[in-house]
């Protein structure tokens, strides 16, 4: 793959909070048009990496390029071209999904209200109910719709399944799968849910101690899926990688 075309290029990225090293000389790259799952335990640095990609945090060292641009220096441009779903829906609780889309629209030139309404219909997102009255799954789906309604080139999903009950979990997972299959979109999904990873990932990267300790390419994943239960193998791989790391 042409390196310059990668929507996310991280070279030697470091992030320290005081003396605590969250990311240490991380090298990472996202291939275009694939769903990459970033696996890692709590505190592994997944959310920090996402925040660096959004430009809301500044890396301590190294070079990060999102869609070829520095996400801090060119924050506005980068943010207009990416979509983001946080782990906890954080829209204003008095807003309905329609209000939320109305609020987002001026921020993203490519935002399509029509597309947002259509997606909401297909994902069964209530448009007239305030967020405070939506279930966690409905709220997450509304956030997902808001994140993709401007057709972003890169979609960042920060543990969207955290805290979801099993039913909502499957509901959101289906929504994501249907969405990413709808277009040639590059997706970075962070999770510690191996089941989710095995179902949606084209590629898996394992993050631990601030570094990528293992990467599984699509052909490798395919091979392992054929040979047995992928989640179990991933659990084994993770344990092994962490020990090595």
């Amino acid at each position, binding site marked *: 793959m042409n390196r310059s075309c990668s929507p996310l290029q991280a070279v030697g990225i470091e992030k320290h909070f005081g003396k605590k090293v969250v990311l240490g000389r991380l090298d990472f790259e996202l291939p275009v048009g694939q769903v990459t799952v970033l696996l890692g335990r709590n505190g592994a640095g997944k959310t920090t990496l996402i925040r660096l990609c*959004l430009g*809301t*945090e*500044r890396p301590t060292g190294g070079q990060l390029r999102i869609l070829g641009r520095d996400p801090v220096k060119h*924050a*506005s*441009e980068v*943010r*207009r071209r990416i979509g*983001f779903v946080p782990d906890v829906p*954080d*829209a*204003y609780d*008095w*807003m309905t999904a329609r*209000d939320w889309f*109305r*609020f*987002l*629209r*001026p*921020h*993203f030139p490519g935002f399509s209200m029509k597309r947002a309404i259509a997606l909401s219909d297909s994902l069964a997102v209530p448009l007239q109910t305030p967020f405070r009255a939506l279930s966690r799954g409905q709220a997450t789906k509304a956030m997902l719709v808001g994140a993709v309604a401007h057709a972003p080139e890169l979609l960042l999903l920060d543990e969207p399944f955290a805290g979801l009950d099993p039913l909502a979990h499957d509901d959101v997972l289906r929504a994501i799968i249907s969405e990413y299959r709808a277009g040639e979109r590059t997706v970075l999904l962070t999770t510690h849910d191996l089941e989710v990873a095995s179902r949606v990932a084209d590629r898996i990267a394992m993050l631990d101690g601030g570094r990528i300790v293992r990467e599984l390419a699509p052909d490798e994943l395919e091979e392992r899926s054929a040979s047995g239960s992928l989640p179990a193998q991933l659990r084994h791989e993770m344990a092994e990688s962490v020990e090595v790391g």
Partner: protein
Amino acid sequence: MFLVHLWKEWRDHRMLVLAQMLIVAVGSGLIVWLTGDPDTGGEAQRMLAPAVLLLASVTTLLLGGDLVAGELRRGKHRLLSRLPDAVPRAFLAKVVALVLSGVVAAAVGLLSAELVWRSVGTGGLDLWTSETWLGGSAWILVAFPIVAVWTLAASCWIRQGSLALPGAVIVLGVVLLPFAWIVRWHPDIRPLPFDLVAVPAVIGVAGLVAAYRSFTRGLRFGGGGASAIAVLPLALLLCVPAWGLGYRRLVQWTTVRPEAQSFQIGEVLLGEGGRFAFVEARNSSDHWTKPPYRTLAVNLRDGSWRDTGVSWEDGDALMTPAFAAPDCQYRTVAIGGAGGPRLFLDGRTGRDGARLSTSADRQAGQGRLRELARETSSLTFDGGRKAWFHRGVLEVSGDDGQVEPVPWNPLDRPLHPCGDGFLFRPANKSSGSPRYFDLNLMTQVEPDWPWWECSVLIRKDRWIVSRRSGDSAPVLWNPLRRTFEEAPFLEKNDRVIAVLGSGDLVVGAPVGDGGKERLTLVSPHTAVRTRLLFEDLSPAETLRLPLGRSAWTTPEEDPVLVLDSEEGQGYGRLDRSGGRIDRLLIRMSVYDRFVACIDKETALIVTDDGHALARARFSSDEVEILFPR
């Protein structure tokens, strides 16, 4: 994008805003109900608008604290920070929302006040007067945006909406502390119109930058405290121009700059020997109100000068006894301000004699000043009693040597020395009645003449009241009988000009029909009239005493009088040995004046429209600027 954020602010805070409007409406109505008595009219009405605006401002600022703090407390700042360009727009929306709610609250409050006024009074509330809006209301309108932006900043740091306003007040207190200090020590200082615009603008912009930076960069800075630490130095740095302006005004207020166009010379005393002049001066046009006079010791030989460090807000810092020595030159010059230090300067060297600053010293200084006044007073009454001025009060030594302060009402104004006696200005010019005071008898003299036609000369035992125009001959005031008497030694058209040390009078008398005036010496005892060997005054010239004082004299005791002519006001020296009138500087502005004779041929004058001291030569156009050089 901005509008969507404004809409968001409205939806986010609409209940608070509605509650605020309700509070303002009810509160304004209550203010009118409780304090607004329609019978009191204008005064009550003038106070209503500021009270209502204050209520609207305070409620708006309390709301403003929640605009940012609420956002931060609910964690929505992270949401805004990941949306493109959302944080600056959100900040702008908050500022506009704050201003709008303030404007609407003020309108609601004034409307409510108007309605309640109509219900309790007669007619409408006349709030739209210049008195209403140029007083307290104007200050509230200026202060509101400043406090508002600092409240936004403080709410980023404290993150508790209710504490944001007190926090802003504390920070603003720190910012305004230098100005409070200036006013504390110089209560008469007043800002210029430029300052009233520039200082609020600078402090407002500093607050706006602080609020913007704290809000937009708040997450990067970390918590509220870290945000404050990161932003406050910058905000305070931005306040430096305002402090600088305040410092500049303070310097302008407390120092004199002789080179500046605004430099103005007040009283001047010439030290003994003519080497030093002691000058009250200030730069007045830099201020709305006039700054205090500073007292300078000026070396007339080289133009060097120093500020003695003593000022007096009311002027007249030079406290040398008012009974001038005949040659108008001073051996000791006492200067001082009310409650401040007293300083004695050597009239020959210009150096400090003693500086009295403690209360005990000042007490001692008062005694020293009184002693100086007594010693240098030239007025001794029959029976050996002396009179002098001390700190604006006339004092007379009693028979037993005790000092008796003279009760000084109703004249209530300083007396002016005049030769062997006093010349007093009328106490109440508007009454049209001259009021003079007989120091011997402690009584008022009231000739029935318009004061502006009169001049008064005082001898040891008689007043001579001379009418300047008309056919009346000068009359004498007999203090024993308390009546006016004809003066047998004066003729009908005599105009008494001066009383010489011998007691003889210098009188101007018309010569023929040409309008010329001849100077004659008249002895009041023998009525002998001797023509003085002076040239006659032309019809356009008038020689007179300087207003409120005796004639100046040269070291040889030739009198120097004011000479009015068609060309303006000048001075004339009666050169007795030469028998001529030596004229000096016929063209002088209203601020220019004679100070004293330096020697027989030259005099110290204030010239250049009150901006400079110069040495002028009699009977010559030669003028040498001595200060500032």
